[in-house]
């Protein structure tokens, strides 16, 4: 996912033939999905009951296995009772594209089943806020630490071994602890995103800082730059485009921690929406929500890539996304 996100700016440009491939990379899976959904003999292991006939436990709209349905038809015929009717269908967890497409709209307009539960857009907004605060807090601490560790060897030796160890601890493992310390609402969720991002962030940014051409620092020193101005006037602007790219990748990671984070304490946000909809078997809404997460993730990354090209006109790599 990171590689995908970090390159995502690239595939919007380029010659027409490659743009065609980009379109195809989205169209092909959808086409496959449509085939499985609309061509009756392709899969359709179930039968959607349209008329109950004499079967007492059938209900209209029920999905039964095809073998079971055929058995019932045979039984009813032998018993001389009314035959049930139905049409081939896929399992409920695979809604057809048009159902998901309409759910993309109706999910926003339908009131939640539970009174007082958040609407979809409220759930989304809540998720985005969790991501935002988790990422901002992590960056506020991780970026300066990373730059210091990348600049001063001593500082690096003091901090990086522990961080290296800590980053192997799975962030969700701290869920219970976070709840105990921070309560059941947003605190522990933000903490999980923070833990999931922060340690990687320090190491990645320290590395990026170390990769800055030493000659630039030496040139600045021969021009009379000393002390903290070496960091603010040379190191920081020197790594800024790469730092920005790192942050984009890390933001992608923060998204992957979101769903875990939202299950901690009282379930909330888009995860709450998805689990609720699955409980009521509204799988079209589940898919709609998943697609919305993807669109927001990819969309924000594309936006940031475009912004990067504006912000860093001198950076050649930025042009490649």
């Amino acid at each position: 996912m990171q590689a995908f996100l970090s390159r995502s700016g690239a595939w919007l440009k380029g010659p027409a033939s490659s743009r065609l491939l980009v379109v195809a990379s989205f169209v092909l899976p959808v086409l496959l999905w449509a085939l499985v959904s609309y061509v009756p003999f392709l899969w359709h292991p179930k039968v959607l009951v349209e008329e109950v006939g004499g079967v007492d436990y059938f209900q209209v709209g029920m999905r039964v296995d095809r073998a079971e349905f055929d058995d019932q038809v045979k039984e009813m015929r032998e018993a001389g009772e009314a035959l049930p009717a139905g049409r081939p269908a896929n399992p409920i967890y695979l809604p057809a594209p048009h159902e998901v497409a309409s759910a993309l709209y109706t999910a926003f307009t339908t009131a939640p089943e539970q009174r007082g539960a958040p609407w979809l857009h409220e759930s989304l907004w809540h998720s985005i806020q969790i991501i935002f605060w988790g990422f901002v807090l992590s960056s506020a601490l991780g970026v300066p630490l990373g730059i210091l560790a990348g600049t001063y060897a001593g500082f690096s030796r003091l901090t990086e071994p522990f961080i290296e160890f800590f980053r192997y601890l799975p962030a969700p493992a701290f869920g219970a602890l976070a709840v105990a310390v921070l309560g059941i609402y947003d605190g522990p969720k933000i903490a999980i995103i923070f833990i999931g991002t922060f340690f990687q962030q320090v190491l990645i940014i320290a590395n990026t800082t170390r990769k800055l051409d030493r000659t630039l620092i030496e040139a600045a020193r021969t021009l009379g730059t000393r002390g903290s101005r070496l960091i603010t006037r040379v190191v920081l602007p020197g790594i800024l485009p790469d730092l920005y790219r790192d942050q984009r990748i890390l933001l992608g990671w923060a998204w992957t921690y979101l769903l875990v984070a939202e299950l901690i304490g009282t379930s909330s946000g888009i995860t709450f929406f998805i689990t609720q909809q699955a409980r009521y078997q509204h799988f079209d809404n589940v898919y709609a929500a998943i697609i919305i997460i993807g669109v927001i993730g990819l969309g924000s990354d594309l936006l940031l890539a475009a912004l990067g090209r504006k912000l860093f006109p001198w950076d050649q790599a930025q042009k490649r996304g």
Partner: protein
Amino acid sequence: MTQSGLPSYLEQSDAVRERFARIREREVILEVRNLHKRYPAPGGETEALRDVSFRIHRREFVCVIGASGCGKSTLIRTLAGLEKHSAGEVLLDGKPVDGPGRDRGMVFQGYSLFPWLTVKRNVMFGPQMSGHSFDAAERQARQWLELIGLSKFADSYPHQLSGGMRQRVAIARALVNQPRILLMDEPFGALDAQTRSRMQSHLLDIWRNIDITILFITHDLDEAIYLADRILVLKPHPGEVLEFIEVPVPRPRTPAQFSSPEFLATKARLDALIHPPEAEADHDDDSGDKPSIYRLTDVADSVE
């Protein structure tokens, strides 16, 4: 390898001799005394410089030459204050050097321009660091861009310039600080031959027109002779001074002098110092073929 028909590189015309006498009367800008530099290395130390001593006078153009790995970069980086020396003294205007400073400008081989700053802002960097106002720094930068002929590119970024232009900006960026000496570490090494010779003439122009002393590192013999008043020849492992040669080629220099007898005599001497004949023989497997090549070649009869 006797250079029949060539004068000795030690022979100087009256004009050249007088010029050197005048140079020697000028104040000493840079003095290096018994400089040693050792790097820590796995299994002991690498001795990069051993007992290097020399003096450079005001407005002199000195080239340092030597095979790759003989400590040229170490020497110039020590003078710049980017490396600490192990023993000895580096005196600038009689005062010991401690760390990098504005009084010693440096031009690196790689393009060391700040990629995030425009050409003008790169040149402004030094003055701004020394506390000049934005306007003052900008005024100085414009003057220098005028002088190096890059006014049109003031608002371009370094990546939009050719290699030669970038090095011109790097020179301007160092000189705008009005250093006492300009240190240049193979500054034209990455340029193609044509650009390189244009840059050499350009550098001589700048040097003629402002009060600057230049220490210039190269491994190109022609470049050293074309540019320098004196050439410091280093020998490798460890880096030691072999000879400090006074170049007998008169000034002003032109590319036509590349085939003059003084030029060729100096080049032959440098060649002999840098590639000693006995070392050559060690490496030659097909030494049977070599003599015939020498017989065919007449050094005095230049192709050009």
